[in-house]
């Protein structure tokens, strides 16, 4: 089981920093939510943890090793990524897209066998996408593709999963299913999960810890009740007095507009 860590990391594009001096640690078995306004750098952080971009300064550690020395294939067996809905080539079936998650486990001279097919079918069952198996991916809806990409990350059998807005296109039932699944994997398999989330209420309900990013820095970090406060929400999103307490579980909920009257 692995730990993801950033030590004094600055991230950006073309020498223009978006995130500065980030110190962040995600432990095995922990579901950490990244929240913050549009363009605050949530996706950039996820790209850095999958070595798509290099940090401008500081160190990114995966399992205690500097990320840039881990070969791609090995990194892809440690860290899986569910990207924001990409354009998928129309020539592949849903099953083939999911099966691509086995790529880092297969050598140059190998091809997929029954074990890989079984893993793919199981992952599709877990994400309720098995009925789509032989459909072309260009015929699928955004939500269906999102579930497929989650299935693909499961098939990768990684020790950590990074999710970039995994519930953005899902209906409320699917949102709960997917986050329940992630929570369950954290608990039962000690998976390390870092998810960029837009929906503050889902983030508060599901995450063990939240990291609120604002103005290129970590604005607040801790338990949902410590991060989602009237003060923080006002400072970051400009919305006033909108944090309430969930009547059943006591976690914070955000109701925008309710404070007007």
């Amino acid at each position, binding site marked *: 089981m692995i730990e993801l860590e950033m030590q004094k990391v600055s991230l950006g594009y073309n020498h223009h920093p978006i995130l500065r001096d980030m110190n962040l640690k995600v432990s095995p078995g922990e579901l950490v939510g990244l929240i913050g306004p549009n363009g605050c750098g949530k996706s950039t952080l996820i790209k850095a943890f999958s070595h798509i971009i290099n940090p401008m300064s500081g160190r990114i550690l995966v399992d205690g090793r500097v990320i840039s020395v881990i070969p791609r294939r090995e990194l*892809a067996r440690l860290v899986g990524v569910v990207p924001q809905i*990409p354009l998928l080539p129309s*020539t592949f079936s849903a099953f083939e897209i999911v099966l691509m998650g086995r*790529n880092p486990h297969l050598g140059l001279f190998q*091809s997929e066998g029954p074990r890989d097919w079984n893993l793919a079918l199981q992952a599709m069952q877990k994400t309720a996408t098995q009925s789509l198996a032989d459909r072309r991916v260009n015929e699928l809806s955004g939500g269906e593709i999102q579930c497929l990409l989650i299935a693909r990350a499961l098939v990768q059998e990684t020790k950590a999963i990074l999710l970039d807005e995994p519930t953005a296109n899902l209906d409320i039932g699917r949102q709960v299913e997917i986050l329940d699944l992630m929570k369950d994997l954290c608990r039962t398999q000690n998976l390390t999960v870092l998810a960029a989330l837009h929906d503050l209420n889902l983030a508060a309900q599901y995450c063990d810890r939240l990291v609120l990013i604002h103005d290129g820095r970590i604005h607040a970090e801790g338990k949902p009740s410590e991060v989602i406060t009237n003060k923080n929400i006002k400072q970051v999103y400009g919305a006033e007095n909108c944090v309430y307490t969930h009547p059943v579980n006591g976690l914070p909920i955000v109701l925008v507009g309710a404070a007007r009257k």
Partner: protein
Amino acid sequence: MSIKQLGEASVELPKGILRQRWYVYAIIVVLVLLVLVLATSIGSVSVPFSTTFSILADKLPFVDITPTWSVNIETIIFDIRLPRVLMAGLVGAALAIAGATYQGLFRNPLADPYLIGVAQGASLGAVIGFLLPVSWNLAGFGLIPLLAFVGALLATTTVYLLARVGKALPVTTLILAGVALSALLSSIVSYLVISSGESMKAIIFWLMGSFALSDWSEVGIVLPYVAAGVVVITLFGRMLNVMQLDEEQAQQLGVNVERLKIILLAAATLITAASVAFVGTIGFVGIIIPHAVRLVWGSDHRSLLPLSVLIGAIFMILTDLIARTILSPTEIPIGVITAICGAPFFLYLLRRRKKAIF
């Protein structure tokens, strides 16, 4: 739904995901051999199919057939026609798989083996070879093939160096640099051609491609390149599939994208350069054969690459057969035939099948 059983594990697979069955390859390989023998028996001196077959079989190890044919016929079949037919097959295979590789790597259906400067570099080298008042032979390489080969590699290396940004090689920049350098070289070639005087016809003939001069020594040089290139490229079929997503996802799925680009570009460029150096810049095959294979057998690179090799070989052997027989004893440049025969057939496939192939 189809069921695939392997020992204890029985997996129910969604239909349409099984790869090509082995007998598809077997049938096509047999077809390649038949076309090879057929093309060898047809020519200005017509030799019966059975005799050609016996002559060729006799050359195989452990096969001994009592000759019922004259030595002359054997010379025509084995020393003149067979190397030419083999060369056509090799070049067709090389151009087709190089085209499929470039298309997959660039995720661009318009890519062909000449996209990043191979053809124009080879042309310039060859034209210079025609115009130089010397000739020599270096380890089987004549002056013109040697300069064409060097020109092709110089041009693509230049494009590669121009397009590289730090450690990364952005595909769009590579294509644009290729198009720009090709245009530059092409204008130099055009100028040299119109001012070449009496060698103009020979140069134009070379530029349109011909197998008329192919012999065993040329086959011996091209074969190792094509064989090695085909093996290397086909090993990366699964990774080329993953590359179809996008470079970011491919990296997250464990593909070392920049290394893959360099390996595949080098392999595809070397086999293309080795081919055009000897037979000229034959067009159309490299772009159309991979698409025809996609239309019939689907877009999975693990079948697309080997099938392009086989179909490319068949197509080129047949077009060369037409080029040398239809107006015999005059030969038509092969580039003319590839387009005249290939384009209508490709358009037919395109109309017949409406499914997305790219």
